């Protein structure tokens, strides 16, 4: 039997890789991880994709699939994402999660470009838009936005030096490579809709996938998620 393919949102790159390694150590079974856009996986599963488990960055995708009867159940929340404001070195902005400094800088006109993920389809983009709207900055910053296809690209924009800052996933900001490229500060979770991330077993799930699904919900795994910047569902 080939190891099952697990479709996972791109923001789980670091966390899930570690969890999968641990899973292999403990159970002797392996899984194949495929990271990508949650939306793409959603379509692929609908088109008969061979994924046995699906970890989406946006729970609505999972619920959709559940409605269509392509999953075993509605799955389980495994994490809630947080967002941060990140500023690269040399930026006039301060890393201030309350976005007050951003407001001032916008007034001063020192912000030329500001990176977020595309709110039309990326969950972290929607959260960023929510936070900016809550801070009353959306209309002022709208014309200065550069939009990443996903949050990773938004982070690349934000740290490229060509933008003065951006809003990205906490999980990304925590990774050593990104944190070296700029300072960041958590944006209060109250400002935006929660980024509820849901995992589910598809109808194709086999024994290993089922085991992995359970493993992802063990305290060990949860600790790993936490370490990589995810809030655990209970903590909400």
């Amino acid at each position, binding site marked *: 039997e080939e190891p099952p393919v697990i479709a996972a949102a791109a923001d789980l790159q670091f966390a899930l890789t570690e969890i999968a390694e641990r899973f292999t150590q403990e159970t002797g079974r392996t899984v194949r991880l495929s990271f990508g856009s949650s939306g793409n996986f959603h379509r*692929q599963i609908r*088109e008969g*994709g061979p994924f046995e488990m699906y970890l989406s960055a946006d729970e609505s995708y999972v619920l959709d699939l559940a409605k269509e009867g392509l999953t075993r159940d509605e799955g389980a929340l495994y994490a809630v994402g947080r967002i941060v404001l990140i500023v690269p070195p040399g930026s006039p902005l301060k890393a201030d999660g309350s976005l007050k400094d951003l407001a001032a800088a916008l007034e001063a006109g020192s912000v030329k470009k500001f990176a977020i993920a595309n709110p039309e389809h990326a969950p972290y983009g929607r959260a960023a838009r929510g936070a900016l709207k809550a801070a009353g900055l959306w209309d002022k910053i709208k014309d200065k936005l550069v939009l990443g296809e996903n949050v*990773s*690209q938004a982070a*690349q924009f934000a740290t490229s030096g060509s933008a003065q800052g951006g809003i990205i996933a906490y999980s990304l900001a925590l990774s050593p490579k990104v944190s070296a490229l700029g300072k960041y500060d958590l944006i209060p979770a109250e400002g935006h809709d929660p980024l509820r991330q849901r995992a589910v077993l598809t109808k194709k799930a086999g024994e290993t996938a089922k085991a992995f699904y359970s493993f992802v919900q063990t305290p060990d795994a949860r600790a790993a998620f936490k370490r990589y910047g995810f809030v655990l569902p209970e903590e909400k």
Partner: protein
Amino acid sequence: MDWTALRLSLTLGLWTIAILLPIGIVVGQWLAWGRFRGKALAEAMLALPLVLPPTVLGYYLLVSLGAHSPLGQAFESLFGQGLVFSFSGLVVASVLVNLPFAIQPMQRAFEAIPSEVREAAACCGMSRWRMLIHIDLPLAWPGILTAMVLSFTHTLGEFGVVLMVGGSIPGETKTIAVAIYDRVQAFDDGAAGTMAALLLALSFATIGVSYALTNRRQGR
């Protein structure tokens, strides 16, 4: 370094040009020498796979080759395996996407063969097949090589369609392009850089050698 992905990409590239070579020759010759109404439209049609963003094209392919589509079902009942999310699906997608790169340069190359040379070959009693081997292919060779190089390199770098149709399954549909992309997305510039450099070096060497051989053969 993700060797599996690299091997997969090279295999995919080779399969793609292996399939495109005969298609390009047949369609290229047909467009070069055929006289029919709507030829310009046929030529234009062939450029269209390029117009759509790869991911979108990939999505349309996913739907039209997928398990619910007649094509996908036919393939599944024949080979017991779906077309999408499999290496075969990648090959099909890759071939479709690269059609313009393969056909157009070949068409031009065939057009450039002086008609009297082909007439002379016919008067030498060469069958269509011998003419192809001894006249058409050698004379159109630089154009065919260009077609192959463009298709091969484009397949190596192709990413949107491959990701969509293939689903990035390690060892099966996760090509080196996807692997590099993943590394870049993960801010793992080091690994991405290594893979990119190796891929570039490898392609550079392969293409350089084919061009060098062709240049020598042409006696230039």
